[in-house]
C-alpha cells in the first residue's frame, strides 16, 4: 500500500502541471461553449436563459460539492441523490401532516446529517468499503423515501419561500439558489485549499496510513465529511422541493451519477489526493452551458449523454496521457525542471495558488 503510494509521489510532481492545464482547458472550454452559444444560438445569451441554465444545475452543484472532499480522500458517496430523495419525501410527509415549514427545514437538515452519519458509521466504524456501503444506502434511502411518502406527490409549498428557489436576485440574472451554490463553492475552496483540514484531505487521499502516522485523525475526518455531505444533500433537497413545488420520493433520481461525473470532469482523481474546487466549478459550468446549448439546438438526450460521456473519459484520460508522454522523455532532471511544456500557458488561471498551497504542504505530510 504505502509502497505503491510512494511510487506515485514523484509522478505527481509532474502531475501538478497537467492538473493545472486541465483546469485551464476546462475554463477555455467553458468560454468556448458560451461564446459559441451566444454567437450561434438565438435565445442563449438572454438573461432569462442564463438563469435557467444556472438554476438547472443547482442541485447537481450542491451534490458535487458534497462529493468533492470525500473523493479527495479516495472515498465515494453514491447515496447523495437518494438522501436528496429521502429528504424531499420527508419534507412532503411533514408538510402533509401540517408541520410548519420553519420546523421542517431543521428537521430535514438533521435527517440529512443522520443519513450521512449512518454511511459514516458503516464505513468508518466497521471499516466497510465506501463503494459497497453507499451503493447499499443508495437503494436503502430511496426505498425509505417511498416508505415515508409512497409514490404520491405533495405540493402547495408556501409561496413566500418558493421564490427563494426560483427567483433571481433583483436586477441581476443570478438566481438565489446559484448564490447559495457560489457561497458553498467559496466555502469549499477556502476549507479545501487554505486550511489544515483541507491539507489533511489530500494527505488522506494520497496515503491513509501515512496520514494517520502523521497525526491526522482520519476516522474523525471521514466521519465529518459524510455528515457534511448528508447536510448538503438535505439543503439540495429543500431547494429541489421548493423549486419544483413538488415533494416526491423519486426526486433527484440518478443525479448522483451526474454529480460524480462533474467532480471527475473537474479533474479530481477518483483515487483521491488530487483535484481543485475551481476545476469542479468550471466542470459544472461547462456541463450546464453545454446542456443548455444542445437543448436549444434540439439535440436529443441520447446525443447529450454521448457527449457528456466522451468529455468524462477525456478528462480521465488526459492526465494519464500527459504522464505517459512525460515518462517517455529523457530522465528526471529535464522533466522535473521542465518550465516550458509544449503549449504555452497564456490563460491565467484564477487561482493557481491554492493548488500550490495545498499540494506543497501535503507532500510534506506524505513523508
Amino acid at each position, binding site marked *: 500500500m504505502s509502497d505503491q503510494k510512494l511510487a506515485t509521489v514523484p509522478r505527481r510532481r509532474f502531475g501538478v502541471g497537467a492538473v493545472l492545464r486541465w483546469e485551464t482547458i476546462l475554463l477555455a472550454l467553458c468560454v468556448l461553449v458560451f461564446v459559441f452559444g451566444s454567437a450561434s444560438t438565438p435565445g442563449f445569451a438572454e438573461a432569462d436563459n442564463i438563469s435557467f441554465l444556472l438554476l438547472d444545475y443547482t442541485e447537481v452543484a450542491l451534490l458535487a460539492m458534497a462529493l468533492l472532499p470525500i473523493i479527495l480522500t479516495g472515498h465515494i458517496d453514491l447515496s447523495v441523490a437518494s438522501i436528496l430523495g429521502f429528504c424531499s419525501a420527508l419534507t412532503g410527509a411533514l408538510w402533509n401532516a401540517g408541520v410548519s415549514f420553519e420546523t421542517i427545514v431543521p428537521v430535514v437538515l438533521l435527517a440529512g446529517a443522520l443519513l450521512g452519519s449512518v454511511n459514516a458509521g458503516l464505513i468508518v466504524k466497521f471499516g466497510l468499503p465506501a463503494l459497497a456501503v453507499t451503493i447499499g444506502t443508495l437503494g436503502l434511502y430511496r426505498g425509505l423515501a417511498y416508505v415515508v411518502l409512497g409514490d404520491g406527490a405533495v405540493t402547495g409549498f408556501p*409561496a413566500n419561500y*418558493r421564490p427563494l428557489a426560483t427567483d433571481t436576485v433583483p436586477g441581476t440574472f443570478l438566481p438565489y439558489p446559484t448564490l447559495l451554490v457560489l457561497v458553498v463553492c467559496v466555502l469549499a475552496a477556502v476549507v479545501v485549499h487554505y486550511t489544515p483540514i483541507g491539507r489533511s484531505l489530500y494527505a488522506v487521499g494520497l496515503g491513509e496510513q501515512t496520514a494517520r502516522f502523521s497525526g491526522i485523525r482520519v476516522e474523525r475526518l471521514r466521519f465529518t465529511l459524510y455528515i457534511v455531505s448528508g447536510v448538503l444533500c438535505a439543503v439540495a433537497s429543500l431547494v429541489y422541493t421548493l423549486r419544483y413545488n413538488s415533494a416526491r420520493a423519486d*426526486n433527484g433520481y440518478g443525479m448522483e451519477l451526474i454529480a460524480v461525473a462533474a467532480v471527475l470532469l473537474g479533474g479530481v482523481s477518483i483515487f483521491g489526493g488530487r483535484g481543485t474546487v475551481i476545476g469542479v466549478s468550471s466542470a459544472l459550468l461547462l456541463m450546464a452551458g453545454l446542456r443548455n446549448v444542445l437543448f436549444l439546438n434540439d439535440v436529443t438526450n441520447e446525443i447529450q449523454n454521448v457527449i457528456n460521456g466522451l468529455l468524462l473519459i477525456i478528462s480521465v484520460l488526459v492526465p494519464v496521457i500527459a504522464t505517459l508522454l512525460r515518462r517517455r522523455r529523457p530522465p528526471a532532471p529535464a522533466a522535473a525542471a521542465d518550465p516550458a511544456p509544449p503549449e504555452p500557458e497564456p490563460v491565467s488561471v484564477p487561482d493557481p495558488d491554492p493548488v500550490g498551497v495545498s499540494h506543497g504542504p501535503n507532500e510534506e505530510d506524505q513523508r
Partner: protein
Amino acid sequence: MIRSRTRRARAALAVTGAGLAFALVAACGGTTKDSAPQADAGGSGTEKVADPNAPIKEGLKIAFLPKEIDNPYENLVDQGGIAAVEELGGTGKEVGPSDASASSQVSYINTLVQQNQDAIVIAANDPNAVAPALKEAMAKGIAVVSYDSDAATDARQVFVNQANSEDIGRTQIKMIAEQIGGKGKIAILSATPNATNQNTWIEYMKDELKKPEYSGIELVKVAYGNDDDQQSFQETQALLKSIPDLKGIVSPTTVGISAAARYISSSPYKGKVALTGLGTPNQMRQFIKDGTVTEFALWDPEQLGYLAGYAAAALASGQITGKEGEVLKAGELGERTIGKNGEIILGPPTTFNADNIDDYDF
C-alpha cells in the same frame, strides 16, 4: 476510559442541544399547510376573447413534450400531433426527456420558451412540478395544451382527454354482450383494487348492466391482477376454474387483457370464453389472429395527438381561449366543444378487430 466518557458526554450534549433547538423551533409555529399563502389563483390579467373566425397564424411553431421520448405510445400520439400542425402549415416537433421523472420536463419547457415556440403540448409527468414553468410560458404568451396526462388546471389552457370514463366503461359492456350473445356470467379482471380510473370504469360498467337489454348478463366477480403480468395470468386461471360456466371476461387494463389472452389461447377455454377490454393492437394482434379475442378497444393515439395539435394551433391563433362552451374545429375529426375546466374529449374509444387491427402499429 476518561476519553470515552467525555466523548459520550459530548454526544449527549449535542443530542440535547439539537432536541432543544428542535422543540424551540417547533413551538414557534410558522407557515403550515393550512396557513400557507398560495400563489395567485388564476386571473391571468387581461381576459382574452376568443375569435372563432380568426385565421390560423402563419408559420406556427408547436412543440410536443411527451412523458418520455422513447415511449412508442407517446411517439405515436406526437406523430398525429405533428401531422395536424403540418396540415395547418406550421412546423411541429417532438422533444422530451429520456426518463419519465417528475422534474425532467421542466428544462425542456424553459428551452421551448427560449425558442419562442407558439404552443407547448405536454403530457405531464407530475402535474405540479411542471406548473410553475408552464405558467411562466403562458405569461409570455405561449399557448399550453396538456394531453394524455393533465398538468395542474391553472397551468394549461386546454386538456385533451383521450376518452371520458363513461364511454370507456359502457363500450366494454357493449362489446362483451355482443360477444357472448347477450346472456351468461361474466367477470372483470382489473388492475389494483384502488386504481381510480379502473374503479370509475367498473362503476359505469355496472351501471350499463342495469339496462334492460343486458338483463341476461350477470357480473359474478371482479378479480385483481395488480397490473402484473404473472398475477393477471394466475387470476384468469383461477376465474375460469372457479366459475365453470363463465362466458366472458372484461379486462380494462392492457396488462390484464394480454395476460388473460395468453392463458386462454393455450387452454381448452379458447373459443368458448370471450375476452375483451382495453389493449394495444401490438400486444393483442396474435390473439385476434388466433381467434382468442374477437374485439377490444382503446383510443387511437394518433387521433389524440391530432386533436391536441389542432387545439394548440387554435389557441395560439386566438380561435379559442379554453373557456367552457367554445367550439374547436379539429380538421378531420370535426368539431369538439370545450367542457368544464378546459377539457376536450377525443370521443368514444376505437374498437379493434380482425378487420382493422393491421392498420395500427402501437
